[in-house]
C-alpha cells in the first residue's frame, strides 16, 4: 500500500491511498484502503490520515478515523495520538499496521506496530525519511 497526506499554507488537508491488497487474497476481497475512515480520512478541522498494514485489522479498528477522533476529543499531540491508536489496535486485535498523519497545525505523526514502514516528508527545503522503528534521517535539498 502507498499513501500521501498534504497540507497547504491555508490548512487545507488532502489524503490519498492506493494498494494492490494482500498476497493470496481471494478475488473480490476488499481491504481497508478504499474505506473512508479505515485506510483514508481527512478533515481539515483536525487532521488527515493514510494507513497501511493488515487490512482486516485496520478495518475493524477504523484506524484513520480513530486517530482523527483522538485529536478531536483528547489533548494528545499528533504523534502521541497516532502511536496510541496503532498500539490500541494491535493490543486488541493483534494485527499490525501503521499510519501517517498531518494535523491542522501542520504537525506530523508517524507510527507503526509492524516491523517496518517506509515514510518520507518534505517541509520547505528539508526531507525526512525512515523505515525502521526510531529511524529519522533529515536531508537538505
Amino acid at each position, binding site marked *: 500500500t502507498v499513501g500521501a497526506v498534504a497540507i497547504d499554507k491555508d490548512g487545507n488537508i488532502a489524503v490519498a491511498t492506493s494498494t494492490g*491488497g*494482500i498476497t493470496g487474497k481471494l478475488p473480490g476481497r476488499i481491504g481497508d484502503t478504499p474505506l473512508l475512515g479505515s485506510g483514508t480520512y481527512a478533515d481539515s478541522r483536525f487532521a488527515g490520515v493514510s494507513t497501511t498494514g493488515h487490512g482486516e485489522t485496520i478495518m475493524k479498528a477504523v484506524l484513520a478515523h480513530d486517530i482523527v477522533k483522538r485529536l478531536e476529543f483528547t489533548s494528545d499531540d499528533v504523534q502521541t495520538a497516532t502511536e496510541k491508536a496503532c498500539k490500541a489496535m494491535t493490543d486488541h486485535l493483534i494485527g499490525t499496521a501503521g499510519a501517517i498523519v498531518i494535523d491542522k497545525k501542520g504537525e506530523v505523526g508517524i507510527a507503526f506496530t509492524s516491523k517496518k514502514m517506509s515514510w518520507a516528508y518534505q517541509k520547505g527545503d528539508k526531507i525526512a525519511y525512515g523505515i525502521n522503528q526510531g529511524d529519522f534521517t533529515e536531508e537538505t535539498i
Partner: protein
Amino acid sequence: ITPIVLVHGGAGDIPEERVPGKIRGVKLATKLGYKKLQETGNVLDAVEEAVRSMELDENFNAGYGSVLTTEGNVEMEASIMHGTTMKAGCCSFVKDIMHPISVARRVMEKTVHNYLAGDGVMEFARNEGFEILYPPGQLVTDFARQALEEWKEAHKRGEVGFARTEIGAKNKYANETETKQYGEVG
C-alpha cells in the same frame, strides 16, 4: 502553516533487499508531490502526484508491482479525500489501469457517489478515457508472481492464511512471533 507532503510506502516485514528501493521511492514521491503542491497550490494534486509516483514503481504494492490474488491477477483499490470539502472518491476491483488513484479522484469529481467498484468502475474508467492496458497482466511483476508461489506453498503447509491475528497471538509489536509475509500486506 508551512506546507508539507508526507508519504508512506507500506508497512510490514519488508525484506532488507527491498529497503533501498523503498527509501528511494518514498523520497521521490515526496519531492514530486511537494513540487506539484508548489505549482498548483492544490493539496489534491499533491497527494495524487505522490501516489502516482509510487504506483509506477515496482518497489511498492500499488499499480505496477501490486500483489496478486489466488488466481494470479491484480485487483487494485484506492481512495482520495479532501478534508475541507469532505469530498471523497474510492474504487475497488480496478484492473489493468496504471493509476487507480486517478480513477478514485475522477469518481470524486465526476460522480455523485463516493465509491465505485467492479464492472461499474471499469466502465466508468473506460468512459473517462483511462487507458485499459492490453493484453491484461502488464502490472504483474516477477516479485509479485514469486511471492504468490511462495504463499501457495506455505498455504499448502497450513502456515499462512488470513488469520494473522490468531497466528500471531503473542505478537504485540511485530516481534518474532509474527507470521512470515509473502509479498506485502495491504
